[in-house]
């Protein structure tokens, strides 16, 4: 277990989000410290993705506060939130199908973080050799798993301080999942904070220090990952 700074990098307080007239998040509240890796666990439809989208400004919360590095970001346009140092990997990959793999990476490129080695396509190709092989192929013409790698690599190109990933292990072969877990571990070494939404408990358990259990649009249980009891899992995660 790694020691974390005191600084809270992300605070979500009492967020309520609607899709049209349907309320999805009910007073969603949690916070993460810098360098920590946290996971939102919950059943399908619990509101994990909606929480992440609210943080990114992809849907705007009706009420509540979101602080990133102490600064209120609720209501900011998405691109500004991103440029403050947040990276987002969506659950449906959203590769630019008409752009090549290399061009997809280029879209994600942002200035380096002071004091840390910036991500380059070469470093990412080392990490995901499949992408190297297909680097001139169109994004729409690579396999689903390769697209999953690409969407993660593309976000890394932005050198985020807080990396938000929505079910990154979905659709990947076990070897690749292992590799992904190792990558995320390495990110923590670089003091990158990680926020996951996951169904895959095993994967989450390998990377994360904290677990927030989401049910019906609110956090109903919050504990260090290793203290997550079988009972809690049974109650909130069994489908």
């Amino acid at each position: 277990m790694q020691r974390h700074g005191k600084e809270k990098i992300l605070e979500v307080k009492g967020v309520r989000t609607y899709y049209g007239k349907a309320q999805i998040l009910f007073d969603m509240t949690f916070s993460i410290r810098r360098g920590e890796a946290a996971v939102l666990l919950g059943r399908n439809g619990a509101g994990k993705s909606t929480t992440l989208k609210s943080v990114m400004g992809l849907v705007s919360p009706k009420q509540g506060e979101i602080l990133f590095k102490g600064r209120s970001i609720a209501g900011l346009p998405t691109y500004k939130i991103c440029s403050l140092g947040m990276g987002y990997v969506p659950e449906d990959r959203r590769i630019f199908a008409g752009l090549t793999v290399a061009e997809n990476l280029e879209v994600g490129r942002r200035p380096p973080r002071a004091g840390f080695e910036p991500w380059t396509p070469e470093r990412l190709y080392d990490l995901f050799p499949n992408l190297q092989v297909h680097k001139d192929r169109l994004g729409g013409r690579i396999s689903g798993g390769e697209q999953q790698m690409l969407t993660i690599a593309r976000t890394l190109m932005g050198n985020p301080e807080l990396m938000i990933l929505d079910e990154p292990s979905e659709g990947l072969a076990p070897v690749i999942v292992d590799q992904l877990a190792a990558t995320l571990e390495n990110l923590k070494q670089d003091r990158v904070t990680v926020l996951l939404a996951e169904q895959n408990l095993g994967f989450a358990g390998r990377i994360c220090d904290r677990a927030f259990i989401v049910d019906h649009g609110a956090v109903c249980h919050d504990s260090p990952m290793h203290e997550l009891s079988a009972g809690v899992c049974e109650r909130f995660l069994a489908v």
Partner: protein
Amino acid sequence: MGPFIVQFLTGLSNASALFLVAAGLSLIFGVSRVVNMAHGSFYMVGAYVAYFAISWLPKGGFWFWGGILIAAVVVGLLGTVVEVLLLRRIYRAPELFMLMATFAVLLVIQDLALWVFGAEDLLGPRAPGLDGSIQILGALMPEYDIALILIAPLVLVGLWFLLNRTRWGVLVRAATEDREMLAALGVNQKRLFTGVFFLGSFLAGLGGAVQLPKGGADLLMDLNVIAAAFVVVVVGGMGSIPGAFLAALILGELTSFGVLFIPQSTLVMMFFVMAVVLVIRPYGLLGKPEGVEHTVSELAQWPLRKASRKLRVTGAVLAAVLLAFPLFAGSFQLILIGEIAMFALACMSLFFITGPGGMVSFGHAAFFGGGAYAAALFVHHVNTPMELALLLAPTCMALLALVIGWFCVRLSGVYLAMLTLAFAQICWAVVCQWGRFTGGDDGVLGIWPSPWAGNEVIFYYLAIIISGGGILALRYLLFTPFGYAMRACRDSRLRAAAIGIHVRRRQWYSFAVAGMFAGLAGGIYVFSKGSVFPYEMSIPRSFDILLSVLLGGIHSLSGPVVGSAAFIGLEDLISRVHFWRLILGSIFILLVVCFPQGIAGYFSARFAKEPGDQEAGSERSG
């Protein structure tokens, strides 16, 4: 052989300006999803600015080309101003509203151009050093045309390089695919959009400027070129710049050789090529099919309701007032109200396919004006009595709509709309160019009602009964199985198909029904006016109808009636003023900026209850 080669090269040079305009249009649409009606205006302004820049600058080849470049940059900046001041405020508004905004810009620019540049057609200056001709196997070819031929490929290569080899270009291409994801990767779309608008308008301005020595500058260029650009874009495939290039070449050659064989028929030839291409490749030569529908139509949130008690009472009161109207109104008011009623029928027929049918038409005047012409020509050439002409007009328009609709229903959304506009422009061109049969610009005069209906009060009743009857019939149709199936097709093509509805055929029929009723409205209209002119079939007429529908609100069945009353009233008020287009355009711009969700949307949002209240969205009734 010589003349043939010269004709071929002339075709290539015709293609140049067309390609520049179409490429800009395609680029802007691809990124921002704005169908920029004002794009043709940018082309026109480019020609005028080039004219004045070149005449102010010193003589000589360097300054000539400098003047052309200045014109393109000025137009690019104009486009940027329009984007920043107007479009940026309304990107979230429904697509149709953005269209209304750009059309308003077109109106404003028309009058501003008249004011600033004057009404006279300008003859373009000769290009220094390129004002001679060269001999090709005994035939003469203007040197400037050769220069034009080189411009299009140069621009094509430049654009290719920009879009594929620069970071900016990669971001632009990404934006055409998924703007939200682009934002999530930290890209400021506002700046990107502004840049694309600059580039697109720059290209339009460049197109207008380079054709100046060949075609000069006049105030009709805007609408002429926008229709041609739509054809190019549809034939080439929306969003594909090489496609636009290819299509511009084909259509340029066609106009060039068409003139040789069948003068006056160039637009018909364009139509023919477009028809052939769309039958074989519905998304154009190099276009990609649109993605499968992701979302249910926005309009599905506004179920149509049968008339509520309140509306029935209002309708009955309105009918009573209309019937009693001749008792206390003068002949001027009778004519005005009669025309509002006919126009309302035309609007209702457009609403019929646009609202419940989900097919936006930019060319509905083809049927309205077409009906007017059909009736007028029967009367004029074969002395058809009014009663028969009123039957023949809708019949002819139903047939025309069947032909046009057969092509249009193969497409959807903006593609469909552009195609309707192109068809309408072709119909308009036929009427204009076939002077011996249609009277050309002089129109058809002296079309009066039968003697029994000659009395203005009787004619008023006739107009009210025909128009009101048509409106009620269309309304009734929406609540029959035909109407339900039609709305099902709009809300979800796939699901409608899955329950056994032949979607395309259903849309085709509803298109024909709409054409028929618009034709009926046009038929009675011509007897009220006594004459008909090509304006009734032109793009501005189509937009009069579309704007009225939008004004009244696309969500509600009574919208078209309210909208047309508002529109005709407004037009009657301001059309006597100089520069009324400027005023009308400004009013529309204001409306769009103040009510970006549409007027109906504004009021329903304003009076809607708190979220969670299920009733709030569905309270509007027919």
